[in-house]
């Protein structure tokens, strides 16, 4: 008797274990038929990178709610995930599984090319023709081989954010338009004892962006395009970029020990230095207005002194002086997402929704008809410069993909640290392209 009872217990235990194991391997796919739009109830999962409480996150929640009110068959489940976590771990892992989110953050460039090659994304060329036309050339960053796989909702070029009061005190009449004038401004700012330029080299990319800009000035547009598609870095202009950067660093325009300064998000960061009047300039993208606000001790003062000007030109260089570096954020739909996903994507980039996005002040809209939503004067000057740019080169690390991008940024940081050479940057990029 005793034995049977124990045997039964053992049996029960093993069954429980087996059930547990089976439960883990579950995961059914319930893809609704793509017959007619908005006929069957569907749930869209949406992963975006506005993870912190604030206007950005609130706005996306509102957008999802509005869309649901418009199309009651569509329920949207939102998850906001911090950018690095989303881009580096959560999204790649989810895309490898058979249950990815339906609509998710897409950064364009080299990454979207890889995702398309792996057959992860939905071709939206036909469904989103009108939106692509309204957005214009920047939508190309989310296209691969002439087919559209995602749409941007934010796009802007980078430039130099500066403290107008400090410029005035140093006797700098107008924002520099050439690097010679920038060097002059640096000298004048040093004379009044302020840090001329803050750089968050600790996070690598804020430092690397200086090299990108020297490359943009040294290389022709064709060379840059070829580098993005073929990962071909043979052109000597890439070494020239490093040499120009090196001589610029030698003029000591940056704060001390910049190698450990973070880029943004805390008062000791480069962002914090500019926002709190400890540095006069910072090279940064259009999102900077929002991040400066969060680290500023006195937002009112910040709004009064902050200004923006495009990256100066280098006289006599091969690059197009009106070309600019930029980048943006977009969304893409998973291969097997319901057709409603694309409709929602189109809704996000529609002029009204884009206007509301612009009003949050977290970035510049891409759709024509949303410009009036941009109220901040600094953001308005970026919008004008973006429209006026002859060519917008996507951030080089995004354009070249994570592997080359990461190796390139590391090697550029080595130049900043004083133990790397311009040639080593190009060598690192070439060897990473083979990894």
């Amino acid at each position, binding site marked *: 008797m005793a034995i049977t009872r124990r045997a039964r217990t053992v049996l029960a235990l093993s069954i429980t274990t087996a059930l547990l194991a089976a439960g883990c391997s579950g995961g059914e796919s319930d893809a609704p038929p793509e017959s007619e739009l908005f006929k069957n109830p569907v749930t869209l999962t949406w992963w975006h990178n506005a993870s912190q409480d604030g206007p950005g996150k609130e706005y996306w929640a509102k957008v999802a709610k509005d869309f649901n009110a418009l199309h009651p068959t569509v329920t949207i489940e939102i998850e906001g995930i911090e950018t690095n976590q989303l881009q580096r771990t959560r999204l790649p892992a989810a895309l490898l599984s058979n249950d990815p989110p339906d609509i998710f953050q897409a950064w364009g460039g080299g990454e979207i090319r890889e995702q398309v090659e792996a057959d992860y994304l939905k071709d939206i060329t036909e469904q989103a023709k009108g939106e692509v036309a309204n957005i214009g050339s920047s939508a190309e960053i989310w296209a691969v081989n002439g087919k559209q796989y995602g749409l941007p909702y934010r796009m802007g070029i980078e430039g130099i954010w500066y403290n107008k009061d400090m410029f005035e005190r140093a006797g700098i009449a107008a924002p520099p338009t050439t690097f010679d004038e920038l060097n002059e401004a640096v000298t004048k700012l040093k004379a009044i004892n302020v840090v001329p330029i803050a750089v968050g080299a600790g996070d690598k990319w804020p430092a690397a962006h200086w090299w990108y800009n020297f490359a943009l000035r040294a290389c022709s547009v064709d060379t840059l395009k070829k580098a993005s598609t073929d990962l071909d870095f043979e052109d000597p202009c890439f070494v020239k970029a490093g040499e120009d950067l090196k001589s610029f660093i030698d003029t000591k325009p940056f704060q001390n020990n910049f*190698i450990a300064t973070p880029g943004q998000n805390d008062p000791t960061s480069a962002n914090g230095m500019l926002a709190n009047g400890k540095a006069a300039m910072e090279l940064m993208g259009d999102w900077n207005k929002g991040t400066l606000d969060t680290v500023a001790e006195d937002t009112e003062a910040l709004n009064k002194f902050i200004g923006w000007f495009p990256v100066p030109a280098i006289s006599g260089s091969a690059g197009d002086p009106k070309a600019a570096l930029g980048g943006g954020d977009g969304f893409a739909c998973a291969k097997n997402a319901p057709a409603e996903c694309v409709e929602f994507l189109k809704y996000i980039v529609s002029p009204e929704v884009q206007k509301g996005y612009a009003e949050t002040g977290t970035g510049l809209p891409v759709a024509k008809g949303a410009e009036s939503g941009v109220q901040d004067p600094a953001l308005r000057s970026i919008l004008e410069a973006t429209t006026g740019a002859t060519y917008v080169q996507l951030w080089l690390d995004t354009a070249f993909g*994570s592997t080359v991008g990461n190796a390139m940024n590391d090697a550029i940081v080595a130049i900043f640290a004083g133990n790397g050479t311009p040639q080593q940057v190009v060598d690192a990029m070439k060897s990473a392209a083979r990894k």
Partner: protein
Amino acid sequence: MTSTNQTLNPAGGVPASPAGLRPAGRTSNRAAETRRKWYEIIGLTTPAIVVYVMFVLVPMGFAFYYSLFRWRGVGPPTEYIGFDNYVMAFQDPIFLDALRNNAIIVFGSLAIQGPIALGVALLLNRNFRGRTVFRLLAFVPYVLAEVTVGIMWKLILTDGGTFDALLRSIGLGGLVQPWLADLDLVIWTLLFVLTWKYVGFAIILLLAGLSNVPQELNEAAAIDGASWWQIQRHVTLPLLGPTIRIWMFLSMIGSLQVFDVIWVTSVPAVRSLGASATMATYMVDNGFFARLWGYGNAVAVILFAISFVAALLFQRFLLRRDIEGAITRRANRP
């Protein structure tokens, strides 16, 4: 660690023999007892074994499998490259820097934390007013979350931060250094932070060990005329041996795998230059950020292999006496 527990469990679960003393039906009873024993073993260990296999062994197998591919984490791995990823790791100067930094942390932790912890533990083991408060204080850093400690020290040690201000205010301004920015200095700064964080653990462990030292032995030695120092040196310390060795073991494994404090305190640029990278941070930087998943897995396997060999060697040579009977074959000695 796990292997010790695993083998200990079945050994502890053999209370079956007294039943064998029953006079009648010995043979059939013994067979039933054996069967019963195995039911018990299988029934009680299956859940644990299933979890262990699914979440430890299987992922380890996958890690090794993926490490043989050139794989970017997009689509299934297809490009088999044998052991190229391993060769690549040992040819990368930054990985070698990471190995060196791990070695500094392993030996630095043992050499600095050991004596400090021993001294403090001996002091706190004496009777004095407020002893509990001091014990608590010594243990506080260990209780704090790693990320909290990392951010705290990052803010203290930043350029012109609290620490620099402190040095200047006591007239030692000349000693101010870029603690986290100087590429030669940063690993020592981090060793200091790690020591601050983990010395409390060593102290608590040693205090627990000290409470097991019989008071009678100390009294006997005192009656024989031994001084306090002699008692500590010849009575307490030898009896504390097992505790010290276990702490050394835990400290070593922890130092080889250290990640969070380094990740938070030291910025990406300094890590990528090799100055503050450890094997674990190197793995994440390369696996996820450079999106070399196959390569990242290879680094993970190397990290595992080094920790595993270190653990085995340590058990074989230093922990031998303490764990005798548990994992050695002489368990059944009379």
